[in-house]
């Protein structure tokens, strides 16, 4: 069965909801009543349910198997968190309801903020960013506001970003009006401290650094980097995408970080949902805290207050503004807090340890058949390059697609850019040893097959997926971004 689009299943007059007839009233639509049809298809409830159940079965998911996407932290998503986020007290709460009726919500946001600050060793947190990239923007805007407040807004225009950074880092810096200056990596996959120092100057606004970095390595010189950055009056923005590796064991505040976003959908397991929603609160140093966006949570008299606008107490007076309507990702806050409380201080540290252990186990177990670009232990992700595929005719992409036929989602590939044909594997702490061993065995078999010259198995992969390889070039060349009724489409030809 090939499942058509809902538009191809529709029939006029059919519907999947029953609504009462509207009471007869005098229409007051100001003369703007819609005239033509919208063009939406009519389906019954059984059809809609079956359509989406069938579609879902064409997806891979963490609930189905290991999801070794480096940097994405695909870990177990507890259903307790889903249940709690749906409590009417949160799910059915209006963002503009009188604050007297939303005290529990404010308490929850405040409690989560307390956990985030304590885990990072930072004095403040901006809760409202909607995702990691939004958090990056928040951090850089706070940095920009701080420089402006110091009268240096016009001169500090350069942001240092390592070559290996997530694409969001340079995109964010540019979006924020900064010039991006790339820092090269050393042979051992870390920021070149010498090169970094050589780039410092009074026009530097900040550095954006991921730690553990995107090679899966901890930046050993992190404190020297922070010191050097601070010595020229610039700020240290840390990309928190990899916080999962160190949560509960290392506090970014102790490393000299000024701002760091936390992907609640990575470290604290709010589900990725096929691409979102996420949540990206940003912890801030004392220097940056006054510039945080509104709304704010303030702990006062043993309780929590929500500050939506600058108030007479001075809260928010220096805030750089507002990043989103309302109060941020409440639904994600509930899930993240439930996750944190379930693990506790001890469990989060254990989770980080297990994540790092699992990655190193993979690195060690595959070291003889695949090639790792760097020496020494990794943090929570194991990085390989494509040297082991040299002269086999198999590319990193082919190798990744062949994993699909073995029942796995591919690893992150061609990232970080500093490693040729990179393959970045993040098993997370959610996998059992049995699961890791099964994965390792499959990867070994694939590596051996590639070396044995079984090119067809790779070049044509996947063979056993809902679709064979899709023509992405054709999709981009003449984009078809929506369904059009056949008659209209034909007429347009």
């Amino acid at each position, binding site marked *: 069965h090939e499942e058509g689009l809902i538009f191809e299943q529709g029939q006029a007059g059919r519907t999947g909801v029953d609504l009462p007839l509207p009471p007869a009233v005098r229409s007051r639509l100001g003369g703007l009543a819609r005239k033509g049809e919208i063009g939406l298809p009519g389906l019954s409830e059984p059809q809609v349910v079956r359509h*989406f159940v069938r579609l879902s079965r064409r997806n891979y998911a963490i609930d189905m198997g290991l999801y070794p996407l480096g940097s994405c932290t*695909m870990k177990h998503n507890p259903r307790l968190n889903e*249940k709690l986020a749906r409590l009417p007290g949160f799910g059915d709460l209006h963002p503009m309801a009188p604050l007297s009726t939303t005290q529990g919500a404010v308490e929850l946001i405040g409690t989560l903020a307390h956990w985030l600050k304590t885990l990072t060793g930072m004095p403040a947190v901006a809760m409202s960013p909607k995702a990691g990239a939004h958090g990056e923007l928040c951090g850089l805007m706070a940095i920009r506001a701080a420089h402006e407040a110091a009268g240096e807004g016009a001169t500090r225009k350069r942001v240092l970003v390592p070559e290996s950074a997530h*694409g969001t880092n340079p995109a964010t810096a*540019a979006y924020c009006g900064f010039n991006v200056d790339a820092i090269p990596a050393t042979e051992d996959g870390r920021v070149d401290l010498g090169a970094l120092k050589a780039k410092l100057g009074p026009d530097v606004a900040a550095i954006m650094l991921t730690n553990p970095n995107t090679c899966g390595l901890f930046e050993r010189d992190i404190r020297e980097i922070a010191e050097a950055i601070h010595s020229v009056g610039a700020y240290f923005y840390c990309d928190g995408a990899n916080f999962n590796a160190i949560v509960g064991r290392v506090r970014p505040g102790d490393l000299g970080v000024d701002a760091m976003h936390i992907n609640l959908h990575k470290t604290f397991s709010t589900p990725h949902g096929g691409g979102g929603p996420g949540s990206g609160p940003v912890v801030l140093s004392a220097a940056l805290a006054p510039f945080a966006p509104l709304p704010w949570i303030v702990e006062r008299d043993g309780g929590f207050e929500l500050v939506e606008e600058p108030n007479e107490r001075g809260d928010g007076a220096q805030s750089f503004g507002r990043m989103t309507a309302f109060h941020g990702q409440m639904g994600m806050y509930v899930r993240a807090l439930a996750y944190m409380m*379930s693990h506790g201080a001890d469990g989060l540290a254990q989770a980080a340890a297990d994540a790092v252990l699992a990655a190193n186990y993979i690195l060690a177990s595959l070291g003889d058949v695949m090639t790792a670009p760097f020496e020494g232990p990794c943090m929570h992700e194991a990085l390989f390059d494509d040297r082991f595929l040299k002269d086999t005719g198999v590319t990193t992409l082919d190798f990744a697609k062949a994993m699909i036929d073995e029942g796995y989602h591919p690893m992150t590939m061609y990232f970080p850019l500093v490693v040729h044909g990179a393959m970045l594997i993040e098993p997370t702490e959610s996998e059992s040893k049995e699961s890791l061993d099964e994965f390792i065995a499959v990867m070994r078999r694939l590596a051996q097959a590639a070396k044995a010259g079984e090119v067809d198995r790779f070049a044509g992969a996947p063979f056993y997926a809902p679709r064979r390889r899709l*023509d992405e070039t054709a*999709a981009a060349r003449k*984009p078809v971004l929506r369904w059009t009724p056949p008659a209209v489409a034909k007429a347009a030809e």
Partner: protein
Amino acid sequence: MRYLPLTPNDRRDMLAVIGAPSVDDLFRDVPAAAVLDRPVDLALHAGELEVERTIAAMAAKNRHSGALASFLGAGAYRHHIPASVDHLIQRSEFLTSYTPYQPEIAQGTLQYLFEFQTQVALLTGMEVANASMYDGSTACAEAVEMARRVTGRKRIILSGNLHPQYAEVVETLARLHDTDLVLNAPAPAGDEDLVPAIDKATACVVVQYPDVFGHVRDLAPIAQAAQAAGALLIVAVTEVVALGALIPPGAMGADIVVGEGQSIGVGLNYGGPYLGLFAARAKFVRQMPGRLCGETLDAEGKRGYVLTLSTREQHIRREKATSNICTNSGLCSLAFTIHLSLLGEAGLTRLAALNHARAVQLAEKLEGIKGVTLLTQGFFNEFTLKLDRDAAPVVEALVEAGVLGGVPGGRLFPLRHDCDDLLVVAATETNTDEEIDRFAAALTKVLA
């Protein structure tokens, strides 16, 4: 601990394979002084029952919309969501999957994104739509940035009746650039004229439809003026159900339509996660922010879907990207797609008619109350009342009577005080006759 499968034996065996004496040894690159020697000062791990008790106790301190008669709107609307929506989005294959970068095993996500894009384009009357933004307010700010890119101009004109928090978000981002931002004063009576301000330096005009006070207005004159000046008309829709009853912005000449999709499938959630809608003319597609899903063929010639035009996106274009957005509102867009599939043409138009009828009924009840003036004559499901006093304490008094009676003007515009006597009131299909009567009776009493 229930979420961690490794046993002490496993850990020992794995360390042996690695050849490391301990897990601490794997953290050897961390400066020793920064490694904590004990757990941070937070509670230790807890079972489901304990966690549920604690968090449910917080939830119980809130008085949610279902527990009172709720007439709150102002950018977030309470609608009934069919049970199948929440059931379907919780399927493991949707809930626990990643962004569909590997299309061969993500056709489920990709196909619904394609359906979502089509639905949004149809609703707004636009040619193309993206695969979602964070919410309406950020979509609005992204639209302004896009208008700047498309026109190369720096003047941004914001209607005074744009949701003030949307305006704040636009302003906050606009400050990052050399911008000439014109923010009009609110016009609660609906008599704002935006045309005169549009000039050859204007990148865009941003208008909300229906606006924050509930007014609907014909956008065609503004569109014509903007386009004559080479500027873009951006229309923001915070109540997307309205598009089931009203002429769509695209039909009146909008260049970009952004919206908050929360009303369909998503729910209130105290403000998030929500769902940003973003639609535009096809000619702007390569300037659009966010993800796009496109149709293509696989190696066997079968129809399939992929993320496309990713050369606009940060993971490919880095500092040259059209925005920095990465994670978006995937699962919320699924909820929207399912709910709107259930509604269909017949359901959405009936739902919209029902909302309008409820609001008309409510307006007719309330406008007769002493001390109340109805400011909004043409509206969808929301309108503004001018009271004979400050609205905020009235709202608090209404809560005592079991009514969430609207959003006071002072909550929306806290820094100016000319809106303090306004009350923005919405009604939806969830409000019963009894609730409408309760509200009218309570407001009569409070204002007496």
